[in-house]
């Protein structure tokens, strides 16, 4: 089976949702999404970092340099207030779309 492609636009939502649990660095974000999706979703680095930089620019997430659990210097991202608002908005939008698509698939 081919690797399922991440729906365009959903990466931001996933990253925000994962960060809602607390600050994480880039690698951990990718791992977390991978694990939470039961190993289905694979986040490409080529998409992850541009996404992180874009959201940082928009002020949804905030970087901070800190120590990782293995004592390495790492850049941790955490949600800002704007980010939390954005997450709520994107979740609602996603729920609506998922529901709508489900309806179509069920009833067609």
């Amino acid at each position, binding site marked *: 089976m081919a690797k399922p492609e991440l729906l365009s636009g959903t990466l931001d939502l996933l990253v925000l949702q994962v960060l809602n649990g607390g600050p994480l*660095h*880039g*690698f951990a974000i990718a791992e977390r999404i991978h694990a939470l999706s039961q190993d289905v979703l694979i986040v*490409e*680095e*080529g998409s992850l*970092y*541009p996404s*992180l*930089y*874009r959201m*940082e*620019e928009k*002020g949804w997430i905030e970087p901070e*340099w800190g120590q*990782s659990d293995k004592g*390495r*210097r*790492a*850049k941790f991202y955490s949600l800002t207030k*704007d980010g939390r608002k954005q997450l709520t908005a994107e979740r609602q939008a996603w729920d609506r779309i998922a529901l709508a698509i489900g309806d179509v698939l069920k009833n067609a």
Partner: protein
Amino acid sequence: MKLVRKTRFWLGGLFSRGRFNAEMEDELQMHLELRTEKNIAAGLSPQEAHYAALRDFGGVDQIKERARDQRNVAWVEHLLRDLRFAVRMICAHRWFSTAVIVTLALGIGINTTVFTLVNAVLLKPLPIPGGERLVTVAGQNLKKTGDSTRISYPDFREFRTQNRTFEGIESARLERAILSDGHNLPERREIGLVSAGMFSLLRTPPVLGRDFTVADDRPGAEAVVLLGYSVWKGRYGSAPGVIGSIVRINGAPATIIGVMPQGFEFPKYQELWMPICPTEQIESRANRDLWLFGLLKPSTSIDAARADISVIAARLAAKFPETNKDLGAIVRTFQDTYNGEQVRSIFFIMLCAVGFVLLIACANVANMMLGRSIGRARELSVRAALGASRWQLVRQLLVESVLLSCLGGLLGLALATFGVHAFDLAAHDTGKPYWIVFNMDLTVFCYFAAISIASGVLFGLVPALRASRIDLNTALKDDTPTSGRHRGGRLTAALVVVQLALTIVLLAGAGMMMRSFLAVQAVNPFVPAGSIFTAQLQLPAGKGERYADSARRLQFYGKLMALLEALPGVTQAAVASSPPGLGAGSRQIEIEGRRNPNSKQWQRASLVVQSAGYLPLIRLPVLAGRGFSEADGDTGREAAVVTHAFAAKYYPNQSAVGKRFRFIENDKPGVWMTVIGVCADIVQDTTDPDAPPPIYISYRQDPGGWMSLILRCSSDPAELAGPVRAAVQSLDQDLPLDGVSTLTAALRHQQWFLSIFGTLFLIFAAAGLVMASVGIYAVVAQVTARRTREIGIRIALGATASGVERLVLSRGLTQLLVGLLLGLSGAVGTMKLLASTGLLYRASSNDPVVLAGISALLVTVGGFACWLPARRAAKVDPMVALRCE
């Protein structure tokens, strides 16, 4: 707060690029390490684990680049990098860049100059607060094809009080008046008789003294006058004490109450202003002689004002049918009112012409860029191979061309400053209204910036798109410059053809103006204009004025001519209603015994009223019959001399001498006049090709108040001004003398239009011709240079020099001919357009001489430009040529 953080992020991104990159490097490095560790944990060897991590990761640099591009500052960085690179390229190819910059400077400079003129004449509002809201209100004859009329005082009052869209409406009557006082010579000046609120409407108070008040334009108010700055300075030496003193305006006393600001000559070139005090005559609704000026309320459209005013006009028409039946009203912007159709069309044509010059310049530069992009193919291929996208290549080339055009533009701006100054000097003495000031303002600068950048994109885009379309394999492998031989060949040829075609169109315009100019110069060759002195007299001949009685006027002219003939240096003196070549009024006539084909449409003739010595003075030969004697024109001896054209038109195949005709004025016939002689043809009006044929009658028969003095002199006519003025003053102290000049100068002044605009078009066309010739030369030379090896082989195989020349020439000449044919069709259109403006003397829309002349010129110059590289090609040494690559 958000803004602050954003700005900091932005600025931080721009200025701490080093740190930003280092941190990103760290971050990605750590990611890579963590991934490697995970792979090791999954059982791979460290080596394999590292490679697997890298493979999964994709291109690290691409990720970095994409992450960097997420920031807003990215484009600034790119632009700066491209700019840096462009500057390096421009400096590296110094001669190439100079050629491009000079070409563009010419194109942009000429454009900016002409736009400055257009802006001054057609666009810029009057320099007063709210000037863009200034409009005029005029009457409009609704029945007779919408002719516009002036407005009566009572109607003005209604418009002023009843409107709801104007801040104010004021009126003016424009006249000329004689200004005299005890101390200086009397002078005739332009005067505006205005309603008292005029200057407060225009927000322009006097610089000295006081403005008119409502008390000043009441009936019977004491006469007051405001002086223009130039009158105050020139006539009264800027003396502040002049306020309160009394001068005479047309002989009636008036008190000077103030001086208007320097340069203020509202509405056109008025130098004196007095209030209009309503009299019984002014209060008549049938007496329409006022111009109305209004200031719209802020944010009121002119359409709303139009609706408002026409409602009032309709009400007036219904209320006063005797005077106002079928009388509407129109509102126009101030500019539209004073810039006739002709002015607008000539400036439009000029703008088109310089647009063509700029297009030629751009085509030229585009060709140069195309030529060079072939040489740069390797550089671009290397860039593409290193990962530059097509868009990045195009952007970089565009930045380079826009930078070049901006540099050209700056040089052009200097050129334009000079050009505008030169035009200002040339147009100084042409009677332009005071508010036309030729200077550069923000509008001009925006236009300049827009065309500078647009030309950069225009000439840069096609070469950039073409150059960036790279087939990496062939471009990198192939080492010989001949590889690009066919690329751009067709495009280059098309650009050259376009340049040549546009040049022909410009040449057609210039050729037509020149021909018209020369034709005007050659008019009436028998008139010894260089030794004729002219001046205008205007006797106050209105009702109740000094010369109201025609016998007094006759007496005055008789005495004056005797005085003038006695002056040393004067050989003959005459008076005439207008000097030769300077126009004439036209009259309706009825030919005796000839039924009018259409009783409503009378025959017409141009009438010159003159004294007996006039015809011999201007050397107009009498072909049949006789000239005037002193007694002709007295009652019972009404006589006329007609031109040959008149005789041929109205008395075909018979002698005109002894026949009779009469004037029809207001549908009433005058006395019969007998034709006593037929004189040679003369062009009396150089501005109107359809003017009816001239006839001459004696001034004794119709002694008007306006007469020109015509003196034939044996010495320098320029020295006569003083003595002639003294002679006039010895007869009448209060009579000024205007328009003192030689006939040559007067004719030249009449033709200022052709000389100024003819010169301009000549400059445009010359610039176009030079650019197009250089363009075709460069292209032929470049193609030839690229074919050197081929030519060498041909010569080595026995091709003759003339054969090689033909080979090279044929390509250039084909382009030349195609351009010529295309251009000629455009040229005919242009000539038709120019002829239709009615600005040119005897202009025909397809003048074969002009068409042949410009074709010959283009073929000669263009052919020479092609021949130069051809000759060089023919001299190629085959040994050198074969080795050259």
